């Protein structure tokens, strides 16, 4: 029911009109020869007294109700009804392996389907649902054509399972876009595309325009890997290089073509540090850039660090190489390292029991790009031991991260058994590693028991089955020991996880170092340079490994629980089904409980005016009051009933 309040402004005038009308129609007192007879009549009939008061009360009640009806009619009440018009829904199901990630007893895939079916149950039966998936080859696969029977939709959805590998849903999205490209003759408008995905697929991100797109919808040009060649016979020469491919203007979006790239902020920065005990003279030759930048001579004092900036221009194309060459006095005791790029000078060594680092761990490390480049694993800056200890004979020099390593060479003692299903019991919030972080719903499926902790170590996270995270120092070098692998816990699904790794690095190294993308050590031979970063930034944390959910702006509106609202524009709706714990990043969309709002029915609004009904009701009440209650005087009763003059002919003695 909707009212128009401005119409209520007429109510005082209406009441004034009724007041004046009432005064004009006010009946004068009726003279009677003797009021005593009337008083006696009042006292005579008990029935009269019992009947008259309710009659008077109901008469006034009807009068006020009629008055209220007239005032309500002035307000122009409108009854608004929503009529569901039906819709065609195309569901695109992402069947990548990441959708099989299971937390809390349900996988992302199962949660996605359950949530969608729950949302679908709130809609009327006039909707039709089509099911679109991806074949193993990446081709769109229509699992179910437009179907209104919910049982068939449910059975078709429940028949799907994730693949054991990654597939791209981009083709399926294009196909869904074609399906809903034109207004449906049944509903008269375009359909709706619902994507059930965790958005790990970068193609999905590109589809929704978060990454720069080149013409033709092709993948954007990127930094590509290049390898420089260094002559083996020159021991004191190091070389790093990379190449730039494609149109440079497409590489750096924003400025006009031909503008100096340096103005875009893209510089090749080389940081040189002399680790030796005496000064050295270096010759740095840069290939692939302007002439004046090709050769520079640099003198470095002992322990001196110098940053050389080489601006890249629009003419830069092809391989860019950086060669450091020591002078003739450069000896084996001298050590000069050069870092080029935008990464931090933290060499990383990852030792994993499964040949490759845990993907969640790799993602978390990549999130700390201001510290490290996980693939520039040279030297012994930071060592990560994932399930295995350091190689035999290799000394542990720098800080280290340990993940479920039995018998580590650390001041702690691990048991022989494992623990299962541990939850968080306590947090040493004063420790810098976990400062400012929350692990309320941390759950560890399996891990190694820590039975003893030395004096040089502290338990940072205490679990219900024993210590979960221990931080300490080993010979003055800090370390952090995790009693579990990230993949065996819900920790990766916390936004706190990359922040935890970064806290570890901050605790290890203090302030961030000089930005270096790659490092070349004189005399170490060839090295390669990865692209500085192709990751997406999200609030300063790289979420590439954490399955970012870039979506079109305006499609997601977060209000308490996860909720999607249609902004009226045509296009697919992305529903990310991550995990119920990944909600700590600001701006992060989570899919913990998708409510019915995410598939809110598209309804038509119909307004029906009730003013006429109000007036009719008021008139009916007034008529009822006049006929049966207040208006039944003998004269009116004579009008109402015929033959009522009998009362006038009755003589008193006949009574």
């Amino acid at each position, binding site marked *: 029911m909707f009212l128009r309040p401005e119409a209520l402004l007429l109510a005082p005038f209406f009441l004034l009109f009724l007041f004046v009308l009432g005064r004009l129609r006010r009946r004068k007192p009726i003279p009677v020869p003797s009021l005593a007879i009337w008083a006696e009549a009042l006292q005579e009939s008990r029935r009269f007294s019992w009947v*008259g008061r309710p009659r008077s009360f109901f008469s006034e009640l009807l009068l006020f109700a009629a008055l209220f009806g007239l005032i309500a009619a002035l307000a122009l009440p409108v009854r608004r009804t929503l009529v569901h018009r039906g819709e065609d829904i195309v569901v695109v199901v992402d069947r990548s392996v990441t959708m099989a990630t299971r937390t809390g007893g349900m996988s992302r895939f199962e949660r996605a389907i359950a949530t969608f079916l729950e949302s679908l149950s709130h809609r009327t039966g006039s909707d039709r649902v089509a099911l679109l998936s991806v074949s193993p080859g990446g081709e769109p696969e229509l699992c179910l054509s437009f179907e209104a029977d919910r049982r068939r939709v449910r059975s078709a959805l429940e028949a799907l399972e994730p693949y054991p590998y990654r597939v791209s849903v981009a083709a399926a999205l294009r196909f869904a876009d074609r399906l809903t490209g034109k207004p449906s003759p049944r509903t008269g408008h375009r359909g709706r595309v619902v994507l059930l995905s965790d958005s790990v697929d970068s193609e999905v991100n590109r589809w929704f325009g978060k990454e720069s797109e080149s013409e033709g919808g092709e993948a954007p040009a990127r930094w590509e890997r290049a390898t420089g060649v260094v002559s083996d016979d020159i021991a004191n020469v190091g070389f790093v290089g990379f190449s730039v491919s494609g149109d440079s203007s497409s590489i750096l979006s924003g400025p006009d073509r031909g503008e100096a790239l340096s103005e875009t902020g893209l510089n090749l920065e080389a940081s040189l540090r002399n680790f030796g005990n005496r000064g050295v003279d270096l010759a740095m030759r840069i290939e692939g850039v302007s002439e004046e930048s090709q050769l520079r001579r640099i003198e470095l004092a002992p322990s001196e660090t110098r940053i050389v900036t080489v601006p890249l221009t629009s003419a830069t194309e092809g391989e860019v190489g950086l060669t450091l060459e020591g002078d003739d006095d450069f000896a084996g005791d001298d050590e000069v390292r050069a870092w080029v790029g935008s990464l931090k000078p933290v060499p990383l060594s990852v030792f994993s029991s499964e040949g490759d680092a845990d993907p969640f761990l790799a993602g978390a490390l990549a999130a700390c790009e201001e510290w490290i480049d996980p693939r520039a694993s040279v030297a012994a800056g930071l060592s990560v031991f994932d399930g295995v200890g350091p190689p035999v004979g290799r000394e542990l020099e720098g800080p280290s991260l340990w993940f479920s390593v039995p018998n580590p060479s650390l001041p702690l003692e691990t048991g022989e058994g494992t623990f299962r299903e541990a939850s968080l019991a306590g947090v040493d919030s004063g420790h810098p590693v976990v400062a400012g972080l929350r692990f309320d719903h941390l759950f560890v499926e399996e891990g190694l028991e820590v039975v003893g902790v030395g004096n040089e170590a502290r338990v940072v996270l205490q679990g219900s089955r024993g210590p979960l995270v221990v931080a300490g120092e080993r010979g003055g070098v800090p370390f952090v020991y995790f009693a579990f692998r990230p993949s065996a816990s819900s920790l990766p699904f916390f936004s706190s996880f990359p922040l935890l790794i970064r806290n570890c690095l901050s605790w290890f190294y203090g302030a961030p170092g000089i930005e270096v993308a790659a490092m070349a050590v004189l005399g170490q031979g060839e090295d390669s340079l990865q692209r500085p970063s192709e990751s997406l930034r999200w609030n300063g944390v790289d979420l590439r490994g954490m399955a970012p959910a870039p979506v079109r702006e305006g499609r997601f509106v977060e209000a308490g629980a996860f909720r999607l609202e249609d902004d009226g524009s045509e296009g697919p709706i992305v529903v990310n089904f991550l995990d119920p714990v990944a909600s700590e990043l600001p701006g992060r969309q989570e899919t913990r409980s998708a409510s019915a709002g995410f598939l809110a029915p598209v309804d038509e609004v119909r307004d029906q005016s009730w003013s006429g009904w109000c007036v009719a009701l008021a008139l009916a009440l007034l008529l009822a009051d006049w006929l049966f209650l207040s208006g039944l005087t003998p004269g009116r009763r004579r009008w109402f009933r015929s033959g009522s003059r009998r*009362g006038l002919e009755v003589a008193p003695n006949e009574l």
Partner: protein
Amino acid sequence: MPRSRSRVVSRAESSPPQSAMETISDPAFLRRLEALNRLVRKTFRGELRGESPSMRQGQGTLFRDFRPYSFGDDLRYVDWNIYARLGAMVVKQFEAEENPELCLVLDTSSSMRFGRLEKLQYASVVAAAISYLVLANSGTVRIAFAPPTEDGSLSVFRGIGQSNALFRRLNQFDAASGTDAFRGLIESLQRCKRLSAVVLLSDFYDFDSFSRLAAFLRHRRTRTFCVHVVCREEVAPQEFGDHLVDVESGETQRIPGGPETLAAYRKAFARHCLRVESECRKDEIGYVRVDSEKPYVKTVLDLFGIRRQQA
């Protein structure tokens, strides 16, 4: 003659009085009264010859009763025949024959001004008719108003020659205020040495003072007759709302409307009428209730006990 009486009645029925002033001063009204007088004389021929009997015993010609002889009685009235048969001296008594004398009491309270045809107007017309008949028969008429005038005196009229003066007097009264109509009237009537007959024309809403007046008249052994004038508006009210005002006292009262109220009022009014009638019977007072819309000629005939068929 029956034809003339019938004409009188039909005229009176066909032309109800518009107002007391216009009716009494109307020559047609006097002609009707004269016709009415002839009819009354004819009806009571031999009974009202010349004189009218009196309640007092005296030396008239109408035998009334016997009583034992006492010392000082006139021996001319001793019935010697009874003495010869029974040996006891008995004296015959006769009614004193006096000229008819009537006291008309007209209620002028505000309640008498109620009705489409005012009860007071109707009562004054009836009073004028009765007075004329009395004056035409050599009688005496005393006019009293209730409430009485300031001096409390009664206007006395004798003979047909004073009929015009009587009519003027009936048109000169002022509407009285107050509710106790008969309270001062008793004092005025006490001054009258002879009070043979009294006719009260009222609505008798002041029942208490009427009861006292009736008791007084019974004590004076005065033949009394009450004319209870009612109007249709008070018998069966056409219009009544929730706000009523008393025409005499000015009091107002909220009365809820509805048929129950009307039924209760009709019963209450009937009880009032019966109460007045019962009081009259108790005090041996004649009583008649007339509607203000009833032709006054019929009312007068009813008062004199002349049936229509007889006429």
